[in-house]
């Protein structure tokens, strides 16, 4: 393992530990660890203590795991990325810490009994999706691109070399070759198709998920949510198109038309734009929420609607609710209603896609 890779890994770990530590408390101002709280409540010593301890615990677990990963990686002769095991391990630990904090904060509130008064209301703007559904006009673009790509490659299929590199070692040298096959060449286009479908799913989540309007000022918060979601939607569309393009480049380098340096640069460029854009959008969302709060005054209403369906503050399980996508309570995104079979299916979809890609490249 060389130094650049180590630095890259270190940055990755720092970012993961940092984000997972702050997201349960900072990203949604009215929830702490998925519990709806007013600022009076969470500033109470018992609750703020639980919050601080949990964040601290998360950081400790993260740092310990990160350090042990580095030590193992340093002394191990293999090229295996041990972070591929320890990062998911850390994510799991993070979920347990979250649930623990969630349960303890809830118990604390219950024992104080002060909040039988929490409201349970929902406000809905019936015209919320009128402009948002315009985002669907972007859908054909990646499909047209994929179609043109397939057409182009099929046209020149006979010119593609018969022996193709299929595996690289850690230093980037080709260590295995394979014979050209339809599956091997077009698996890239199938993966473009799957990526596009997954991004359409994300887009639908942005359009369809619950409005989460401020119950005191539904009109203002509806306007604001619409603006944020519209931006998120356009961003997701752009990223989806960029990924399709970069997979095309990877395919071109695979069939030896362009140098692999170029395709790598395009791919990392796309990933970089995705990360920077996501951070910028998140910051923007925070800023807008703060602005709304300062304009209409911080609302001290604790809204515990659907609380009983939020398991551990992370998982939404509601059989009655026909909604498939809901906004997260802890963090900055969407989650799936696990009370519905469609929800489970969507959760499994990436794995089904991955398996299909493997079979396609191997046997077609």
């Amino acid at each position, binding site marked *: 393992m060389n130094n650049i890779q180590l630095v890259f890994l270190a940055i990755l770990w720092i970012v993961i530990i940092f984000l997972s530590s702050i997201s349960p408390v900072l990203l949604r101002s009215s929830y702490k660890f998925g519990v709806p709280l007013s600022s009076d409540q969470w500033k109470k010593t018992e609750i703020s203590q639980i919050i601080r301890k949990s964040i601290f615990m998360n950081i400790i677990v993260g740092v310990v795991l990160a350090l042990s990963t580095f030590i193992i990686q340093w002394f191990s002769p293999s090229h295996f990325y041990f972070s591929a095991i320890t990062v998911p391990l850390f994510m799991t630990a993070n979920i347990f810490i979250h649930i623990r904090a969630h349960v303890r904060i809830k118990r604390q509130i219950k024992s104080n009994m002060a909040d039988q008064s929490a*409201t*349970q*209301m*929902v*406000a*809905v*703007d*019936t*015209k*919320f*999706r009128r402009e948002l559904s315009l985002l669907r006009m972007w859908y054909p673009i990646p499909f047209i691109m994929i179609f043109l790509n397939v057409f182009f490659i099929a046209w020149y299929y006979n010119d593609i070399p018969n022996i193709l590199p299929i595996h690289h070692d850690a230093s980037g040298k080709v260590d295995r070759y394979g014979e050209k096959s339809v599956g091997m060449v077009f698996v890239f286009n199938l993966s473009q198709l799957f990526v596009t479908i997954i991004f359409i799913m994300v887009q639908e989540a942005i359009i*369809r998920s*619950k*409005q989460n*309007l401020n*119950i005191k000022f*539904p*009109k203002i918060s*509806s306007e604001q949510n619409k603006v944020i979601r519209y931006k998120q939607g356009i961003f997701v569309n752009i990223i989806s198109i960029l990924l399709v393009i970069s997979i095309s480049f990877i395919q071109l380098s695979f069939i030896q038309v362009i140098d692999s340096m170029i395709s790598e640069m395009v791919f990392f460029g796309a990933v970089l734009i995705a990360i920077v854009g996501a951070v910028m959008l998140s910051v923007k969302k925070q800023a807008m929420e703060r602005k709304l709060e300062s304009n209409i005054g911080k609302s001290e209403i604790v809204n515990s*609607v*659907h609380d009983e*369906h939020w398991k551990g503050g992370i998982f939404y399980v*509601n059989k*009655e*609710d*026909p*909604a*498939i996508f809901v906004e997260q309570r802890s963090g900055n995104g969407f989650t799936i209603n696990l009370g519905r079979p469609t929800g489970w299916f969507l959760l499994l979809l990436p794995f089904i896609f991955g398996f299909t890609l493997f079979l396609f490249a191997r046997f077609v």
Partner: protein
Amino acid sequence: MIIRIDFKSETPIYLQLSNQIIENIANGNLKPGEEVPSIRSLAADLGINMHTVNKAYSLLKQKGLLTMHNSRGIVATGSHIAEDEKNMSSVKKALRPIIAESICYGFTNIQLKEIIDELYKDIKGGKVDE
């Protein structure tokens, strides 16, 4: 149109829903011929069972305030005739126990009329009941 549902209220959810749609028709927020959201999407937004929304919509269809439209789904009904016998009798029937209750509390005829005037103005002006 903004719809607000209070899960802690004594009033059943389908009634809260239908009452608010009626008010929005009354104050012109929901114009005749304009569609209401589909049962599925409204239920998903509110996080409630689709049957509940369906119940509210059927109630309003029964009252003749909503109608099925072939291409646009469920829409607010076009025109009503106040002298329509059915409407008249349904309004009378709904008012009767309320007026009786008010008489028990000792409201006079004039006081009652004032209340009606005030509420009529509020509803027409789109003032939301908190």
